[in-house]
């Protein structure tokens, strides 16, 4: 069964990516995690996302396509990236979510994917 691990980050998390003092630890942690998923043979896809300031939303309002600057949710924490893993059940997925590098304010949401066929 495939699960998405959606990594939500606070503004400090996004800031750490480019902070000369913090970025090394930030990226090494994430890469080590990705490596662990690959070595376990359960990694099925995913992506790190650029900062929410780079987001654009598209929606229909009164039948008119509306394009707008900014992310969908106007919240402090934002989606920073996601992993898709294939594991037997929720407990294993939660186990892997719990192994994501610990950073202040990071929350990993575990969602089962719909089957693909």
């Amino acid at each position: 069964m495939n699960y998405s691990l959606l990594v939500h980050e606070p503004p400090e998390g996004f800031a750490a990516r480019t902070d000369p003092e913090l970025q090394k630890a930030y990226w090494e942690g994430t890469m080590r995690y990705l490596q662990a998923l690959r070595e376990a043979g359960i990694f099925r896809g995913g992506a790190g996302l650029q900062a929410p300031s780079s987001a654009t939303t598209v929606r229909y309002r009164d039948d008119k396509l509306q394009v707008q600057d900014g992310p969908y949710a106007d919240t402090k924490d934002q989606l920073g990236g996601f992993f898709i893993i294939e594991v037997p059940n929720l407990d294993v997925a939660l186990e892997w979510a719990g192994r994501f590098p610990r950073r202040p304010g990071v929350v990993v949401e575990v969602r089962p994917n719909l089957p693909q066929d």
Partner: protein
Amino acid sequence: MPATGETIARIARESTRRLVAFLAARSGDLAASEDALADAFAVALETWPLEGLPARPEAWLLTVARRRLIDGHRHGEVREEAAPALRWLAENALAEAAESETFPDERLKLMFVCAHPAIDPAARTPLMLQAVLGLDAATIAEAFLVKPAAMGQRLSRAKAKIRDAAIPFEVPASMRLPERLDAVLQAIYAAYGLSRDEVAGADPGRRELSLAAFELAGLLHRLLPEEPEAAGLLALMMHCEARRPGRQDAEGNYLPLSEQDPSRWSREGIWQADRLLARAAEARRLGRFQLEAAIQSCHSRRAHGGETDWAAITTFYEALCRQTRAAGAWVARAAALAQWRGVEEGLRALDELPLPVVADYQAYWALRAHLLRQRDPEAAAEAYRQAMHLCRDAAMREFLHRRLAELP
């Protein structure tokens, strides 16, 4: 053998929950398993009276239910998220089990699923009562003071989550067992807690709930005999159940523990509870339920003509406060302290509790009222009114009302 409706009803009563647990553990879909089994019983009601009772009724029912589950998949009635179910059908484990003499009891796995951290905490106890014991949603709704429709929704949401998120039907690995077991114990205790000594439990709905919780605790202990906390929970309930006959006077009025006549308690029940607790303590893994049972054991000692050892009870409550940090334990400690060291000490202990934590807690106000009776009747009356306002149990409210009327 002729198969009457009564025979079928008996089999339904004795086997339904084990059959459901067995099907659910293999299909991963609790709701569909319940539906499939209900269908199987409907077929049994039609065919058994004509064709006679099958040699192994449970195996027969499993075979029919399994076919229903497969048909459900084929017709797309069961949504495609039920991938684990399909996996199981491929493995054919059920056919194998249907052929063997007995089928394994999977109710322990079902309990762990019901109290899984991924399940809404408010749904865990109701789900366990319904899935493991078969209590109907209306009865559960009544005990939890919610509308039946709302309870039905809460239950079906939880079942959908089990299926969609593929919560595994497993007894957690030993590393995770203590915390996961604690969730199971808490869910059972929550059902029982609605009818403990502090609450009269005179409402019939509550009584049914407490018996159901008692049954769950017994089942859990039988399935996990080596877990001292499971034994502790059962011992705690056994003490309360043993004292139940003394909990009401001849008119059915609630009597607090201190006014109960110990000769009406079941000495045999108390003896069994103590024996179970002593065995649990041998494991040397003391937890909150063994502590609670030890406290109840101190109270039950009066059955043998002994005095209540309030110093010991206070000590147990202090240990409990460190373990749970729950308001109930702090209030109970204050009550024990008042018995041991006097009203002043008890009141001081109550005053030390942060009001936001205890303001909505009935037992806090009831104790406060009790301790203030002689010293400050006016303040006591106010506390009684506060307690009655928060009280959900009719007999208990009546008791508080009587106490209020008797104030000097």
